[in-house]
């Protein structure tokens, strides 16, 4: 079975919520919608304090090149514009909206009917995706419309849909594929039209046989879409790893997937694209997995953006007494959250709750030069060396040893028997080297 070639690990999958159907979370009383939810520049607000807004109304406009529109997820009044602690752990500006009823903008099609015909031109599709504030929902939140704009000197050949969901615990993409399979097929067709390719591959790891089977069944009506099962290996959902696993092509260091004729989108994003194009619906809700080994129950919720996470946690029976960490995203790459009031944002695929029982020993040993980090690294780097140079602030060596290739997947840290904080060290070094490289360009 296909998989990527270099490195990789196999952490315990713990897909506890894989059989829980998507539930709609009741509307919150207040939502907190951060201005900026993308990898890129913050959006510029177009409404003011006190304004009445409807579901789907534009709140902030993405004016910079890498930026995305933000829409209201509820109807109500903007009570204030405040600094709140967001996923990053920093205070960021957000709209605080008191919810009143659930009044949607009239042009949004709320019916469950599936709409097959794609009437827009490629250019219109891309503009619409931009207008609807669609970003990558796999976690990186890169604005989707930018991904779809193929540079003039490049040619897209194949669209890759990422249904891998390689992070342990998370099941939101899995449930979406099972429950919204047809929409995903249509969404894929829309994206193929937008970038002008006649071939798409949906990659799904083999621990989701029901999703593979269902989508393969559906793909009989879509001759240009292939569904490919992949051997379970982390981090197969990494863009470069997935392209390599499916096409055998290696995206060169520092380049984008289009360099090898591919464009990758997450299944969640594809579903959002379907809703945006066919239903005229901006991105204001998403599926969030709430899971953990010691919770009363685990669930996959359909949640309005801006809902504080404590409402999701209450819905599964509250926090266990010995809660240690609340993680936004999966346990390999997710961020530990500082506050229960942190709102759900576009990129939040799950909330994983870890307890004291799952605590990692914090005792670091000396590096015993076992080389396991090197064998685990899916980018073929030498994590132990990067970590060392990062501690020594040797930025020249860091750059020469390709630190910017690091995707921060955590495979090295997961593997390290000496429990060295490899990823933390490398991340620090990578930030500095990134700054140095950017300052050189200017």
């Amino acid at each position, binding site marked *: 079975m296909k998989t990527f070639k*270099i490195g990789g690990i196999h952490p315990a999958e713990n897909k506890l919520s894989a059989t829980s159907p998507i539930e709609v979370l009741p509307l919150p009383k207040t939502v907190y919608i951060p201005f900026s939810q993308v990898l890129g520049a913050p959006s510029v607000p177009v409404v003011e304090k006190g304004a009445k807004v409807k579901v789907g109304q534009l709140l902030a406009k993405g004016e910079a090149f890498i930026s995305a529109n933000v829409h209201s997820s509820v109807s109500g009044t903007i009570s204030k514009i405040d600094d709140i602690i967001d996923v990053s752990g920093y205070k960021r500006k957000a709209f605080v909206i008191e919810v009143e009823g659930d009044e949607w903008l009239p042009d949004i099609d709320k019916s469950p009917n599936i709409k097959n015909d794609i009437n827009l031109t490629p250019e219109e599709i891309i503009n619409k995706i931009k207008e609807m504030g669609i970003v990558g929902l796999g976690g990186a939140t890169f604005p989707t419309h930018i991904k779809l704009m193929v540079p003039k000197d490049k040619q897209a050949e194949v669209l890759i849909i990422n249904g891998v969901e390689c992070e342990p615990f998370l099941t939101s993409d899995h449930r979406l594929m099972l429950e919204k399979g047809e929409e995903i097929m249509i969404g894929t067709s829309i994206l193929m039209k937008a970038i002008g390719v006649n071939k798409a591959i949906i990659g799904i790891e083999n621990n989701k046989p029901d999703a593979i089977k269902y989508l393969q069944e559906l793909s009989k009506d879509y001759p240009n879409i292939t569904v490919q099962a992949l051997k379970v290996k982390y981090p197969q959902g990494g863009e470069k790893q997935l392209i390599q696993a499916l096409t055998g092509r290696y995206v060169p260091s520092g380049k984008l997937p289009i360099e090898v004729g591919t464009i990758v989108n997450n299944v969640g994003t594809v579903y959002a694209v379907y809703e945006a194009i066919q239903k005229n619906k901006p991105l204001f809700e998403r599926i969030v997995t709430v899971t953990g080994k010691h919770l009363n129950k685990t669930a996959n919720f359909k949640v309005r953006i801006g809902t504080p996470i404590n409402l999701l946690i209450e819905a599964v029976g509250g926090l266990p007494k010995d809660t240690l*960490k609340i993680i936004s995203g999966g346990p390999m790459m997710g961020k530990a959250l500082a506050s229960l009031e942190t709102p759900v944002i576009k990129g939040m695929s799950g909330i994983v709750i870890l307890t004291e029982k799952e605590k990692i*020993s914090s005792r670091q*040993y000396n590096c*015993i*030069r*076992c080389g396991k980090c090197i064998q685990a690294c899916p980018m*073929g780097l030498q994590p132990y060396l990067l970590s060392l140079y990062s501690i020594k602030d040797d930025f020249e060596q860091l750059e020469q040893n*390709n630190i910017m290739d690091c995707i921060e997947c955590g495979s090295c840290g997961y593997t390290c028997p000496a429990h060295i904080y490899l990823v933390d060290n490398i991340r620090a070094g990578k930030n500095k080297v990134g700054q140095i490289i950017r300052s050189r360009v200017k």
Partner: protein
Amino acid sequence: MNLLTISGSPHIHGEQNVKKIMWGVVIALLPAMLVSFWYFGIDAIILTLTSIISCVLFEYLIQKLLFKNQSISITDGSAVITGILLAFNVPSNLPLWEIVIGSFVAIGVAKMAYGGLGKNPFNPALVGRVFLLISFPVDMTTWPVPRPFATLVDAVTGPTALGVVKESFMKGSTVSEIMHKSDSISNLLANGEHLNNLQNFIPKYFDMFVGNMGGSLGEVSALAIIIGGIYMLIRKIISWHIPVSYIGTVMIFTYILWLINPEHYLNPLFHLLAGGLLLGAVFMATDMVTSPMTPIGMIVFGIGCGLLTSIIRIWGAYPEGVSFAILIMNAFVPLINKTFKTKTFGGK
């Protein structure tokens, strides 16, 4: 409510840690240790215990008295491994005070002087062994003939099989002349051979395989070492690269020479079973701290060890070359790590 913990990803860990690896190696060493107790008796037990205790004690004292800000690490098991391996590399009748000195050199000079576990460039047990070999050459090269409990009462000493061969070669004997005297100890005794003559006999291959021959404590039984090696492979403590490339190189090298002149060069099987090749290739060359970190580097390292071992054994002054070969290759590890990096994603 308790405060939430904030830390960087990853938030889960693969359960592997230094302690588990080190104690795993200790478990892998047990079969060979038990075989040595069986063949060399109470002397072997006392010697092994002395070696382990003195290694652990020296590490403790050095950390306590000199590295005041370092936490005591003796429970990680690495000093125990050094103790066992040092005992494995000496004859069972070595005076106890000598093994204590060996332990001090291994732990104090070869390990702690560099900063402790993970910082040492050379394998501590081998440094201790070579120090003893150079300082006490006679004590280190006369080996008791194995005497399984109750088979023999008196200790008989003599050189190892490799030593017998080396000496015989120097006297101008051919392989068939030497091998003519190959027999097992119990047969010889049954045939009325005098105890003192036993030392000139070469053990049979089967005896060499199970460990019924003279030699260092840990090197005699190929079978026990292979069992330990397989255990470490299964637990992923070692990978196949170093043992296979090391042993393979010795096999190929000695096979070619044996093809050229079977009367002047020993066959590969003899090289494999007599002496410390297996012990070295499975337990010493694979020491994570002092071996390369990439698979290609490991293979280069193994080939280097194999070539040096063969050259020293065949043309060198010493009958055995494993310790020197590994120590010399240890010195090349930083260079190997720098030269043989893994291929980066999409790169060269």
